[in-house]
């Protein structure tokens, strides 16, 4: 083998500074040899060789040192010790689109980018035509890049990089972009470059891609070389390493067993593991970066037979959360996350995630059960089945082929903000992911959740109870709270449309977003909606009567509030021409296609003081419905 890259005993450390560094203090530190910050090993004693014409893949978890390694090889940063021998010219493509200037034209950018990756001007002139041809954007080449779509920009960047005729090409996670036709062309370009004797190093998360493309693969783990070998061997070791890392602690009760690994916790019920890979975990999002629980340092603060208090710390970012996990009974696990308000100042979102086994065939939402697609996309991308939609009160999975209990993440006690996601994995991650994101604005410093395990019957009961608890019916009339919206149905036909019956104050649709709470749900239903924007809460009471449903609306002012206008709004399907009778006079609002009612309050000034006021009441009857 004709070796072109020979790396031996490469070590790279970073200093991580907790506080701001003071310029004035530096000369003093130099004299006293004081060293600030903590030492973090990004790479430790890494050695490997790459032969000419190889396609060498590098895989590893986030933070395992892959990108640092490519940065050192391309000269962007320097290692602390060890030796690097590289024969030939190196071109690196660590991020597509870097070095492109929005206001310059495509052609000008070819020259700019070309010179940034070290090409002499004459060579760019010579290659200009073939670069433009490869990118396939001849028509737009003299237009400013800011008018390009991201796809076009990527084409141009890649075209320039592969035409530089490097001896060694370093690629970091850049192959997953662009449409499939262009991707195919990129693969071909790399293949033909390799045939010409170019050596390629690729960092990627896409295991199937690495597997089919690379002749040899190296797996990095926490800065060490975990394995080097054929793609098949190393990919296998990599997937194993996710779930078989050393255990932190475990708690159990009866046949329910919870195991904590550095990535998250795994639930084992009657000897069957329900979760996989990271298990149940938390990740914090700050700017665009994710801080996963797998990257945190875990401390066991307090460990009992069936409960544990853990502290997770992302050292170099000074972020910390506490987990309190207790097995309530052999079907319920209480999971509380305390963040502290300080933390919410530093992060944008908190994400709660459960990675569950592939054997579950159905996912559960408060509104319905849905099957995972049977033909799972076997590409290296994951498929988002439910994404960025409104927050759900619970998420779950059921229908496991081997008898595993259904698993439900119950967020009833959490604020109804953020989003819910259901993801099904491709090759990269066989299994499904349930996710809830809580945005930082909610300002909540405690998230209380429950993980519930159900048999089929219990599950249906739980689900029905959640449905029933929010429903009052009489005759064919049904008042329902579903997904934070209050709707009215008659004979299974919805009378109201999105966003449901609501209250507007000062002409703002104030009741959205608000936090709903079920106060009472026996013969009648009492709901309390606390606004997230105004110091105000609504209390709706619905009571089933023989001839209809009695409703009462009370307003609770938590603070002094100036109100000029207040209306109960009922958006209806105007084309159906059906007007519900709620027992008080309604006015048609043509602009918003809805009915409004102004409550008959005795004195407007009364609302300016905190307190509870009756806003109106009436009886919804089906007899009063008619066409108009």
């Amino acid at each position, binding site marked *: 083998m004709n070796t072109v890259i020979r790396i031996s005993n490469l070590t790279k450390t970073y200093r991580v500074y907790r506080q701001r560094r003071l310029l004035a203090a530096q000369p003093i530190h130099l004299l006293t040899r004081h060293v600030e910050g903590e030492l973090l090993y990004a790479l430790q004693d890494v050695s490997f060789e790459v032969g000419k014409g190889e396609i060498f893949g590098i895989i590893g978890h986030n933070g395992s040192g892959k990108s640092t390694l490519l940065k050192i090889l391309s000269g*962007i*940063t320097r290692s602390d010790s060890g030796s690097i021998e590289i024969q030939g010219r190196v071109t690196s493509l660590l991020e597509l689109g870097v070095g492109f200037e929005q206001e310059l034209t495509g052609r000008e950018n070819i020259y700019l980018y070309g010179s940034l990756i070290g090409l002499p001007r004459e060579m760019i002139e010579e290659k200009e035509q073939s670069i433009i041809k490869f990118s396939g954007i001849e028509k737009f080449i003299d237009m400013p890049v800011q008018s390009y779509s991201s796809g076009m920009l990527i084409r141009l960047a890649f075209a320039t990089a592969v035409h530089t005729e490097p001896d060694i090409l370093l690629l970091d996670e850049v192959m997953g972009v662009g449409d499939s036709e262009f991707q195919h062309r990129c693969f071909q370009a790399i293949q033909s470059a390799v045939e010409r004797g170019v050596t390629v190093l690729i960092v990627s998360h896409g295991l199937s891609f690495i597997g089919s493309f690379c002749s040899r693969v190296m797996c990095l783990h926490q800065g060490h070389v975990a394995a080097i070998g054929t793609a098949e061997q190393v990919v296998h070791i990599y997937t194993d390493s996710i779930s078989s890392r050393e255990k932190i602690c475990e708690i159990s009760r009866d046949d329910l067993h919870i195991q904590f690994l550095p990535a998250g916790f795994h639930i084992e019920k009657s000897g069957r593991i329900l979760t996989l890979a990271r298990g149940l975990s938390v990740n914090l999002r700050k700017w665009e970066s994710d801080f996963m629980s797998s990257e945190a340092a875990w401390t066991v603060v307090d460990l009992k037979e069936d409960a544990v208090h853990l502290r997770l710390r992302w050292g170099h970012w000074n972020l910390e959360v506490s987990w309190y996990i207790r097995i309530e009974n052999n079907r319920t696990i209480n999971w509380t996350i305390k963040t502290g308000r300080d933390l919410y100042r530093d992060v944008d979102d908190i994400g709660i995630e459960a990675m569950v086994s592939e054997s579950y065939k159905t996912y559960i939402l408060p509104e319905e059960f849905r099957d995972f697609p049977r033909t799972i996309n076997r590409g290296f991308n994951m498929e988002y089945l439910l994404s960025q939609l409104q927050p759900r009160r619970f998420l779950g999975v059921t229908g496991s082929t081997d008898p595993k209990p259904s698993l439900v993440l119950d967020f009833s006690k959490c604020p109804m903000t953020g989003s819910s996601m259901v993801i099904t994995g491709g090759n990269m991650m066989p299994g499904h992911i349930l996710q809830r994101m809580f945005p930082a604005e909610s300002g909540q410093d405690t998230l209380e959740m429950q993980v519930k395990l159900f048999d089929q019957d219990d599950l249906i009961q739980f689900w029905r109870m959640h449905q029933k608890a929010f429903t009052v019916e009489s005759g064919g009339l049904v008042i329902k709270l579903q997904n934070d919206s209050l709707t009215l149905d008659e004979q299974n036909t919805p009378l109201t449309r999105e966003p449901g019956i609501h209250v507007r104050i000062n002409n703002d649709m104030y009741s959205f977003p608000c936090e709903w709470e079920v106060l009472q749900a026996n013969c009648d239903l009492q709901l309390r909606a606390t606004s997230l924007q105004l110091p105000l809460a609504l209390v709706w009471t619905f009571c089933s009567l023989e001839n209809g449903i009695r409703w009462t609306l009370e307003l609770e002012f938590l603070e002094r509030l100036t109100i000029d206008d207040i209306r109960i709004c009922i958006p209806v399907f105007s084309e159906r021409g059906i007007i519900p009778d709620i027992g008080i006079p309604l006015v048609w609002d043509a602009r918003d296609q809805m009915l409004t009612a102004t409550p008959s309050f005795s004195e407007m000034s009364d609302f300016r003081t905190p307190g509870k006021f009756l806003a109106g009441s009436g009886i919804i009857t089906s007899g009063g419905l008619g066409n108009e």
Partner: protein
Amino acid sequence: MTMAIGKTSYLHDLKVVFSNRDLIFSLAVKDFKVRYRSATLGFLWMLLNPVLQMLVLSLVFSFIVRIPVDVPYPIFLLCGLLPWNFMSMTLGIGASSLVNERNLVKKLYFPREIIPISVAAGHFINFLIALLLFLPVPLFFLKTWSWALLFLPIPILLLALFTISITSLATLSDAFFRDTRFIVEALLMVWFYATPIFYPYSYLTSLTGVIPRWIMPFVNMIRFNPMAGIISMFRNILLKGEPPRLADGLYVLIITTALLLFSFILYRRHGPIIADHM
């Protein structure tokens, strides 16, 4: 080519910087184009700014506060203002340039000193155009046509090298300590008054006995200001039609060489880890 860590010679590193002249040029042209492309008046601003500045300062110092000079005040002023503007704008903008270009620095390899050098190169184009347009003014009004004009490249070159050296140092310092840009801002404000731009150097000697005694040592320190030397060279050539004083040239040359060497050594040592601090 075989690359091994920490085994390159000084000469090799210098060659690498020099071999990147295409990149310096590309970046400078990019800055230039981006700066003026979207403005309606385009690169006219490059000329309008010093003219406006000259008008305001001329008004102040020839009518309100009188500073005696033996040539028309606007010409005298512009002679110092053009070199000063080049230096101060390069330093002011250049100080934060590595951090501003952090996307490039984090994702691409090139010698890091290229960035401040390219900022200087971009402003140097500005400076040269402004100088060329201004040059006929003193030559025509003051009739200073002479063989001394042949010396003009010397102060231009020294100014460019001095600007590059000081900007490179500020940029490197800023990459590690972000306070530097603010220090530079403050420094530039003081430096403007400590440089004989709107007053002749002789004006300072006339202050003896007029101002309190304890201020005099500070005033005398202006003697060691390299920008004073550079501007004095420009004035000798353009306003008097005389060759620059050897003492000025030598002093600036020594300072500039020392600063250049110092910054080259610092970049050799710390340049490769700048990306870690972005």
